[in-house]
């Protein structure tokens, strides 16, 4: 149990730091959706299926859609990452 929780928390923190440090904006959005996703697994472990479902729907699905659309309008979504 403790190892599962520790693994999820460590991966979540690594993904959160990745969001701030990675240069490519697309990768930042993908990492942010990964944070939401691991958080939703934690919510399910904490016996909160309602919250887990909301986080999965809003944080991992809708939020990344909105961020991706905004990236396209800002013109930051070009494939130029080496």
């Amino acid at each position, binding site marked *: *149990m*403790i190892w599962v*929780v*520790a693994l*999820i*928390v460590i991966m*979540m*923190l690594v993904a*959160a*730091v990745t*969001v*701030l440090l990675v240069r490519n*904006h697309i990768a*930042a*959005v993908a990492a*942010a959706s990964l*944070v*939401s996703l691991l*958080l939703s697994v*934690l*919510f399910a472990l*904490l*016996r*909160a*299926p*309602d*919250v887990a479902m*909301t*986080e999965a729907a*809003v*944080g991992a699905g*809708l*939020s990344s859609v*909105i*961020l991706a659309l*905004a*990236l396209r*309008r*800002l013109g*930051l979504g070009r494939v130029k990452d080496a």
Partner: protein
Amino acid sequence: MMPIEVGTVLYAGAIGLVVVGIAGIVLSHHLFRIILALVIAEAGANLLLVLSGFRWEAIAPIITGGDAVQTMVDPVPQAMVLTSIVIGVGVQALALSLTLRAYGAYKTLDIRELQRRMSADLAGEAGTPLPQSLEEPVGGRPLPAAEGDGR
């Protein structure tokens, strides 16, 4: 050396998310990154709220037909977090659309550059002399005369 408990790990994760998010808001100069950092800090706060209602050996607060009465986790923080997540996405969408407008008007997303151009615009509209710089010169040198383009 006491063993590390699950609660410590979870609290550390939640506080870590909040701290990483706030560090991102304070330290980064790109508007899009600031919005992403805001999302992360919000996620950490939600995790803290849900943690406050957790109990061992409890089931989810949903009655599933079994007649045996079991202990359940606290439903009140969960309902609060439900509200918080949905409002968070509304705030995020509004912030992104304002970012898009700012980009359309000033063609940059760096907050230092944005502030410079905005203050130049405001000064131009008000007819006052342009502010040369937002910071004091080092070493007590006198301020330069109020000409120049201010950029």
